[in-house]
């Protein structure tokens, strides 16, 4: 890993607490980390250890209780929701465990969505290109309910890369798929990641998948440590 690379994600003493009926619950207890541009990082840990919360905070989906998270040089807690949304549109792509495709839109329209939201006039050509890259050029007009789980995740991946994100966040991307399909999907994510030079941050339970990342960070009881 070259030191000249810019830091894509950085956190400083990141703390997150939520109010529950039983009182305040501390989920993240002071996380400090850096992820450089182009790196692939897996965050692993037991259920309830705070992986998804961390992902949400560093992706700008939520605001931390204390400390700070940065995407490039942007301090996320100092931005309002409008600015964070713009930043997500510009820098960030997501792949989710349960695909989260819009059921009323076809595969092509789902992939076009990020570009359409940002007002890109070439949304259709770009989307068609990415669907081709994920091997679904023959399924462009199909709706999510007409696609298998693996196909739906491929559409989700095409959608995530369609906005040319600098960082791709993946939350258990193979969690809802059988092993064989899961392998195909993970290959696809890593291939695109490499070819487009995207930074990859992946939350997963799957040790094999985690090992394919350059770094593995272990989340345990709200604290983060680097795997040896």
């Amino acid at each position, binding site marked *: 890993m070259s030191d000249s690379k810019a830091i894509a994600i950085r956190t400083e003493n990141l703390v997150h607490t939520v109010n529950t009926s039983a009182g305040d619950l501390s989920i993240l207890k002071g996380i400090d980390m850096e992820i450089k541009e182009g790196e692939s990082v897996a965050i692993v840990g037991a259920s309830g250890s705070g992986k998804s919360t961390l992902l949400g905070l560093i992706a700008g989906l939520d605001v931390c209780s204390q400390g700070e998270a940065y995407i490039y040089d942007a301090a996320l807690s100092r931005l309002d929701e*409008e600015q964070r949304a713009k930043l*997500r*549109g510009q820098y960030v792509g997501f792949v989710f465990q349960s695909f989260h495709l819009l*059921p*009323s839109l076809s595969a092509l329209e789902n992939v076009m969505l990020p570009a359409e939201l940002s007002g890109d006039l070439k949304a259709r050509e770009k989307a068609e290109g990415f669907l081709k890259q994920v091997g679904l050029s023959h399924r462009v007009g199909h709706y999510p309910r007409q696609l298998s789980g693996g196909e739906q995740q491929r559409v989700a991946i095409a959608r995530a890369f369609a906005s040319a994100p600098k960082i791709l966040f993946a939350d258990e991307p193979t969690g809802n798929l059988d092993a064989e399909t899961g392998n195909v999907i993970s290959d696809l994510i890593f291939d695109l990641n490499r070819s487009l030079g995207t930074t990859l941050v992946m939350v997963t339970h799957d040790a094999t998948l985690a090992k394919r990342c350059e770094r593995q960070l272990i989340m345990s009881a709200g604290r983060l440590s680097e795997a040896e």
Partner: protein
Amino acid sequence: MKLALKLLFRELRNGDVMTLALAMVLSVATVTGISLFIDRLQASFELQSATLLAADGVVRSSKKLPNEWQLKADESGLNTANRAWFSTMVFTEAGLQLSQVSAVTKAYPLRGEYLIDTQLFGTGFVSDRGPAAGEVWVSSRLASLLEVEIGDDIQIGEADFRVTSYLVRDPGSSASAFAIAPRAVINWQDLDKTQVIQPGSRVRYALLMAGDADLLQEMQEWVTPKLNENQQWRSPRAGGRGIGATINRAESFLLLAGTLAVVMAGVAMALASNRYVKRHLAQVAVMKTLGATPKKIASILTWQLVSIFIFGSLVGLLLGWSVQAFIAYSLEALLSTALPEPGLGKIWLGVLTGFTSLVAFCLPLMTRLLTVSPLSVLQPMGRLEGKTLLLYVFGFIGMFALMVIYTKGFLLPILMVLSILIVSVLVAGIGFVLFKLGRQFTSGATSGWQIGLAALHRRLQSNLFQLLVFTLIIMLVLILTGVRSNLISDWQSQLPEGAANHYLFNIQQEDVARLQGMMSTLEIEESDWYPMVLGRVTQINQKGADELFGKGKEKPEMMSRELNLTWTDTLGVDNEILEGVFNPLENGFSIESKAAEEANVELGDEITLLIGGREYTQKVTSIRRVDWSSMRPNFYLILPKTILSDFPTNYITSVHVANEHKQAFYQGMSDYPTVSLLNVGDLIGQIQLIIAQVSQAIQLLLGFIVASGALVLVASIRASLDERLEEGALLRTLGASKSLIQQAMLVEFGFLGVFAGFIAALAAEACLFGLQVYLFELSASFHPMLWLLGPVLGFVIVTSIGLFAGRSVLKVAPMRMLQAL
């Protein structure tokens, strides 16, 4: 905008957006349909009244009107005409006759038409202008009395006129239906030639105006301060205050009832929006992760709501317009009377209703989408958070504001809200007990009965809500059906087939038998013949009106004018003795109940009558209820024969003359020039038209209410559809057959419908009691049909729509459903 519309259109396939749009269409259509229809009703009434007045506005005076008034009206762009009328002797070689003569300018009448004929006692044809200079039109009665025909000359004052037509209807004389004196019409140019008008002559002048309502209003405002005590402004509205007020009340009633349709549609909108929002929270969260800013989401939602508003308003307006046009068309065929075209001025009411419904029921829910956190894509939310109270407040304020606009006041809306609250509490209480009982009697899940009744209890809150909605809808349907049948039966009883349309009076004793013979020959139905003398009530229990009611205070009608008095051997069928005994052979007066009530007269009180200069004092021996609408002669007081036999009497009767007999009847009547004839057929026609219109409007309303109720049912079932789908899938996975699930749904919806119908029948019976007693002034009656109709209607409607809306519970494969969980 493009993206917003794409997402919206794609959602149409899913029922929520469709429900939302249909509810919007129904809201707009209901209010548009009612308001346009009522507008036509009002316009029709005003046009008819204007025909009676021959103008849209008239200034009447006992002195010649200032020229500047005419100039002002002409300059402002109003059409004007003049009329003067007076009583004078008309001469021929054969003799002379007192008659009522009108002189009219060329433009007269501005509204309505003359009806004239070349045949004596003909039924007439239309003429839109009056007689030319030198001509006179005379009524057939006058022609008979003067023994003149068309082409003969008659003399009015100092001028000679040629008879050119027989006058059948004079549109400007508001008393034309009651005209007793024979009539003649001449041209205004000939007025001076007659030299009839001298200082001190009793002449009435009228300046008639017609045209744009605003110009007329301006003229009225200009002229009113200038009017002295001998001058009056008359307009169609003021002229028929009674009917006008009735139509206004009908409009308030219909719109208020329509409000329930709007509220139902609003509830459907809220339910559909709620489901839409629930289903889209995750989607909006995903869009936010993809870079959609809150402003972008707001813009997408706004465009979607605006599109629904535009679609709902346009289709709703079109539907509302079409439905009222269809009803007007069917009325036209039924009554051979074309209604005036509706004004477009009331369209805003429908659009406002749609907008308010959207803002009150839809917008607050939709704003939840703006606040959904993008984090929810990673950490699914629990229950949808929301400021529920605020949502209810929004909905309530919106609907209350509409009710206030519809009824132009606060009283009726407050009463309606209170009624809904009372019914809600009643329904919640009864429903809770019924659902609990249903659960108590069943345990286990082996039969459709058990599963269905258990579901009623399990979804207690939503089922109580549905129960309330269905109860309100069925109740309103039952009430409106009851009101409509009351109206119709009231109308039929008032104006039965063959109801009298002419009164004959001033009939001499010696003419009675001959006239009866003529009626029999012409097969004309006649009512009883009553002798009649004029008299005045001077005292009650030896006390005069001033002493009884205060000097200068308003007196009861019975003591404020001369009364027609009669005697009879037997009471007419439209008289019912309430107190005392009617015995024509014994002394004592029989008094009509309302007159007795107004004058505080009770059985045994003494009434003193002054007849022909002689006083008679007798006790009240019976009090009668009289059906004044029977179109038969009736009297406040019936006297013993012993009194009336002292006086020369003439007779009165009423007859029904069918259209085909009219000409023969009028010709026959020319042999009885002294008999006065009063044609009330036009009046009956007007009443029939209004009742038919209101009755049709109720039918229109019923259609809209049932449609919006059905929409609420569909929306509320869809709101619990996800839960039902899960349950259905689980039951089927555990081995339940489709028919068992179908049976369970049938039980659930069936009971819901029957319960709602039962409670609705109870509430409708109570409401109809109030309406019958206080509004229609009828005796209260029990409606056994309601108790049958309510539960049956409830069962049929709720189960059929329920099974239809929930059909996917049976269709969707359990595997697919469980995968989606």
